[in-house]
């Protein structure tokens, strides 16, 4: 439903978005990941028709944003960064205005407004000026505005930014609930968010697209993906440590073993598999035959933080290299 081809945006001499292409279909929740200033908001602003691209093509629900902006905007719901709305209006009058602009008339207006307000739990503050509302409620007003016309495509720029953990949880539930028959794009720099709501993730840094795949694929790029953290109880940690490391290294699927800590009566290790291999069975039987006393046995899913840092900072270096 969204198709972006070779999209670029230049601000003066500065390239904020550099040749980005991707597409997203129905049922997908696409996460835009990237450090601050990466170009996430700029990309979203171009998709929603706020900014005109320097070059490239965007189509939403098979309408071209550039040649058919009004039609495209009808099929879009957009929550801009910071969820701006008119501070002196009440949520009721604001949503009423949005419903009218979205082309609803008569009873349908009230129905849509009430429906959208209910979905984001806004009913208790409908008649208070928006400027007097808390951050969480202001965000909900923005949500209600974006989903009021039940759009096929929903674009949200950092929807959970600045919310407390409970509010973040609510927002994620809402996104999941709406995901079934829509295409949703959310930007974030919170990695756990990608794991909990997105079906696909895109990493952008310095305006360039550096990764496009599932959150699982992203995890599996981690050194820690399928690695095992093992803690063993022992009276003489140092001797056992050496013995254990030597033994584990002989296992066919094990790539390397690292000693994390050795303290009084305990030793911890990270065991890394060879690429793509699973080592839990091998390690487990090795433990059995040696009769080690296990305190902790944990298969890691991978550290997104690490992959994220890896992907975005390696481009840092190449960007700097290109300059010098």
């Amino acid at each position, binding site marked *: 439903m969204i198709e972006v081809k070779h999209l670029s945006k230049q601000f003066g001499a500065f390239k904020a978005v550099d040749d980005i292409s991707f597409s997203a279909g129905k049922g997908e929740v696409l996460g835009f990941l990237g450090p601050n200033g990466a170009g996430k908001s700029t990309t979203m602003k171009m998709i929603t028709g706020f900014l005109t691209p320097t070059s490239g093509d965007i189509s939403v629900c098979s309408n071209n944003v550039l040649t058919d902006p009004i039609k495209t905007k009808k099929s879009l719901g957009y929550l801009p960064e910071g969820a701006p709305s*008119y501070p002196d*209006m009440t949520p009721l009058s604001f949503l009423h205005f949005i419903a009218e*602009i979205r082309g609803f008339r008569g009873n349908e207006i009230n129905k849509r407004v009430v429906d959208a307000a209910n979905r984001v739990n806004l009913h208790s503050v409908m008649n208070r000026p928006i400027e007097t509302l808390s951050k969480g409620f202001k965000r909900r007003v923005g949500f209600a505005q974006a989903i009021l016309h039940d759009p096929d495509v929903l674009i949200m720029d950092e929807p959970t930014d600045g919310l407390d953990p409970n509010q973040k949880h609510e927002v994620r539930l809402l996104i999941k609930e709406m995901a079934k028959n829509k295409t949703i794009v959310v930007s974030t720099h919170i990695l756990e968010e990608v794991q909990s709501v997105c079906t696909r993730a895109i990493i952008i840094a310095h305006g360039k697209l550096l990764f496009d795949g599932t959150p699982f694929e992203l995890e599996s790029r981690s050194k820690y993906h399928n690695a095992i953290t093992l803690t063993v109880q022992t009276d003489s940690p140092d001797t056992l440590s050496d013995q254990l490391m030597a033994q584990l290294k002989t296992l066919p699927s094990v790539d390397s073993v690292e000693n994390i800590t050795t303290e009084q009566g305990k030793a911890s290790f990270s065991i890394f598999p060879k690429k793509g291999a699973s080592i839990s069975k091998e390690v487990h039987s090795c433990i059995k035959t040696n009769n080690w006393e296990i305190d902790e046995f944990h298969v890691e899913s991978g550290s997104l933080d690490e992959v994220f840092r890896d992907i975005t900072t390696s481009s840092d270096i190449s960007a700097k290299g290109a300059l010098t």
Partner: protein
Amino acid sequence: MNNILIISKRELKSYFATPVAYVFIVVFLMMTGVFTFYLGNFYERGQADLQPFFLYHPWLYLFLIPALSMRLWSEERKSGTIELLVTLPISITESVLGKFLAAWGFTTIALLLTFPIWITVNYLGDPDNAVIFASYLGSILMAGAFLAIGSCISALTRNQVIAFVVSVVLCFGFILSGFPLVLDFFSNWAPQTILNAISDMSFLTHFNAIARGVIDLRDLIFFISFIGCWLFANVIIVELKKAD
């Protein structure tokens, strides 16, 4: 068309949601009173007409209209709601017209609230009501021209104070553009045709012509096309500068 009205309605409501509307109306009525009765010697002249009332309208508008128009676009830009407005399924032209019509409608309401003075003058004497009607029409048109300038300027900056000051200066220039103060500024370097064009744009000249009771098509066309040009520029500026 419908979208324009929806935008106008929202804008107009927001005037009345804050003290802006009431302050504007009260100040407007007070000032017209002061100008008419003190400076204009309404009673002392002993004539049944509203000439002293309309005489000072250009000067009243010079400060009051930019105060009204300065927020039209600056505020949208400052609060970020312009991103919302531009990504709604309406054109920028519709937004510009909607906002302008709201401000113009509001000024018209304020102006119509001066009706007691019309009643008074009919009670005291036997004025030429056709002239008064023409003067009201001219005043409304001139207010529209001021507003179009103000709206366009407010799209240029997110700072309302700057929008106000620049609008006042421009409006002042257009009030007096047929007079030496402004013409001297150009006469050293601009060719005669441009000087003529500038002096033809004087609000004062066109307004006074209409206020004499002669509704000349040329004066009407002047104000309407003047408003059109500034609003056209307004659309272009919003289009180009919306994201800055």
